[in-house]
């Protein structure tokens, strides 16, 4: 059930429920990204794209009613002892994604649609079929696949697709490979639904949804490492160079060229606060952010002292820091929190 996956997002320490859900829904505000970083769930960013916040809230309410979660204060949720036990069981049984991080650096959803049609077109062509119901009637996807397909001779495309998919599927478990192949649509093979796959695999339909999204992410990761693959040209335009948004990347590039934040704001026609937000986004989403350019050793030492007794970085309050370091601004405080999370 969907609620199982919601329960798996919580711990015995209180978490801001909406922030957790917004990470899953792919909301990219700095406050959401920061929550994802401190709660250790950034890998799942955008994994439940398109799912309404209400659906998460309803699931959370149910878990509270079932006494698996409790709300220690408004907006926060944590596991109850029964929740801890249930979560332990779920961790043993429910399929858990391993490659959802790919959602950040590729348009996996678009690739899912494009590749479904491409594999169908390839499979039908191999068997000399031109009369079939396409899996999608979306014109832009049809055009994309048509361009990819045109230069291929069917006699070469089929074996090339077989070899490519075989190589990728051999890297998975047997169950994963079976789910991937049985869900495909092609010649005399409409493909199985999540419900049908779940029955066969003795899992829940929602697990098949999670698994299939994960398999798609794993496939994307595999294709990135195999740019000679016949399907790579369909993925290439959907790959991003970084998880960071384009605008924040431009701000960061200017920052690396040693501009001051005010100069960057002027050159890029942005507010100073936006420049700061961009840099926080970069600091959260990249591993090698040069914190030392914005935080002095003295500031770091002072903040380390202030919060020495509190290891839970997400709980630190700016007001606590400001009381002892009145010159400190929120940007520096948040940056220090991010640095501590990254270098923990």
């Amino acid at each position, binding site marked *: 059930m969907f609620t199982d996956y919601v329960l798996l997002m919580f711990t015995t320490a209180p978490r801001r429920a909406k922030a957790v859900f917004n990470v899953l829904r792919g909301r990219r505000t700095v406050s959401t990204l920061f929550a994802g970083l401190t709660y250790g769930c950034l890998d799942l960013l955008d994994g439940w794209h398109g799912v309404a916040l209400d659906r998460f809230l309803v699931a959370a309410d149910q878990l509270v009613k079932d006494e698996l979660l409790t709300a220690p204060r408004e907006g926060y949720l944590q596991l109850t002892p029964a929740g801890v036990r249930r979560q332990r069981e779920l961790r043993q049984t429910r399929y858990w994604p391993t490659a959802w991080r790919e959602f950040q650096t590729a348009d996996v959803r678009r690739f899912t649609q494009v590749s479904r049609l491409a594999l169908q077109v390839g499979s039908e062509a191999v068997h000399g079929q031109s009369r079939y119901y396409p899996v999608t*009637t979306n014109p832009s996807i049809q055009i994309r696949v048509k361009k990819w397909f045109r230069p291929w001779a069917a006699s070469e495309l089929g*074996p090339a697709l*077989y070899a490519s998919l075989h190589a990728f*599927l051999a890297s998975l478990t047997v169950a994963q490979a079976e789910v*991937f192949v*049985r869900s495909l649509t092609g010649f005399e093979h*409409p493909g*199985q639904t999540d*419900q*049908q796959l779940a029955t066969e695999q003795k899992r829940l339909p929602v697990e098949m949804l999670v698994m299939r999204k994960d398999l798609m992410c794993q496939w994307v990761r595999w294709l990135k490492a195999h740019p000679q693959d016949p399907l790579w040209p369909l993925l290439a335009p959907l790959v991003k160079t970084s998880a960071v948004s384009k605008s924040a990347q431009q701000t960061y590039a200017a920052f690396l060229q040693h501009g001051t934040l005010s100069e960057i704001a002027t050159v890029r026609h942005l507010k100073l606060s936006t420049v700061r937000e961009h840099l926080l986004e970069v600091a959260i989403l990249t591993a090698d952010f040069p914190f030392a350019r914005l935080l002095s050793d003295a500031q770091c030492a002072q903040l380390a002292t202030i919060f020495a007794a509190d290891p839970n970085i997400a709980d630190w309050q700016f007001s606590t820091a400001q009381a002892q370091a009145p010159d400190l601004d929120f940007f520096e405080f948040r940056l220090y929190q991010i640095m501590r999370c990254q270098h923990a």
Partner: protein
Amino acid sequence: MPKTWTKAELRQLLKRKYGFDQFRPGQLPVIQDLLAGQDVLAVLPTGTGKSLIYQFVGTVLPGIVVVVSPLISLMQDQVARLNYQGEKAVAALTSQVDYGARLRLLGQLNRLKFLFVSPEMLGQPAVLSALRATPISLLVIDEAHCISTWGPDFRPDYRDLGHLRHQLGDPRTLMLTATATEQVQHDIVSLLAVPTAHRVIYSVDRPNIYLSVAQLESEAAKRERLRQLLTTVTGPSIVYFSSKRQTELITDWLQTETTLRVAAYHAGLTAEDRYKVQQQFMAGDLDVICATSAFGMGINKGDIRMVIHYHLPTTLADYVQEIGRAGRDGQQAVAVILYVPGDENLVRNLNALTAATPSEIEQSYQRYQAQPNRTVDSEMERVLTAYWQRGATVAAVTTQFANRQLAKERELQSLLQYVTTKDCRRALLLAHFKEQAPQHTASCCQLPGEPLPVKALGLDRAQDVKLAPPSGWEPTLAKLFLPNS
């Protein structure tokens, strides 16, 4: 001066383009009328190949065929079907097409031969102005009965179609439906403002579909009867339900209780799963589909042998549409309603969802007056707001809603008469559409106390298909992508 086509020429084209030797009943006169420049209201029974009519006219006349269609899934099916037939210059303009692709599509309308749109999409200024700049060979209002049945209290944009048609320059228009009472025909023609349209009306009767009703005492008895029917009458079968939840519950139950290959189909499934279930059914990989009415409008499977209504349909017209998915190959088929007294309340509850009391209508109007651009938070408010935006008065809307609810109750009473009648059901059904019934025979319908003559109809079920265990991923992959494997 438009070219005059002889029957022989039209038949030749039919053979060359579609591979058929003969037109099906109704197709030829409608095509002839349209080619002669007439607007046509065509009421043709389900399974007569209505879409061939506009495809045919589209290939003959220059310009684009614009098909107004009620459901996204239906449009996608129609586009997929045209793709299947080799027609590439076809697209559906729906909310599921992203903004950029939509703009590209509108910029290249002259490259398209067929465009499917909803009434709501057609009313958008960008769509309307792009279409005004494109020669339209034919405007098709598919499922035209929706103008009358959905327009008043569910999809108000349906009532704007006459105005939109006029803005498009009053193109030649084909109104298509499988069922329309005289009142519905009148609504269609008057709301579209095509008073001179030729009416080509064929009987709704499908003599090869045996009509049956099982009156049962309880829900448990109903389930048991369903199981018994599905395991003794030959399939493939469709079972219709009025809710997604019931569709899934009974699917699970049948999967546990029988060896039948069963799948659920409803609007809550993803587009991918809907496609797969539909294609599995078409390919004969499923024995039974448990569905809401979302299933079937675009389905063209000839060998469906049984349609069961686990819950009552909302009207006799809907019933005729839904059972019309059976026996399209002309072979014997059967339609069964499973009825437990009180089931009609479910229909009343559904009808009530689109009802609004005079005070609700008045309050909605006041809210609109106070804040015309507010966000509407309910389906009813959206419908009512559409009326206020069109300048309707509270009195007119109140009357409209009251009349619609009365009409729905009358429709329900007609349906109940059909369910509970002690006489020939076909006669009653046809009388509803002002048609004469043929002589009652043993293969016509089930009278009270009579058993369902499964054997006599030649519908007794053969042995279940023995399923081979699923093969591993490698052989399946090879079958998909390696020739001769």
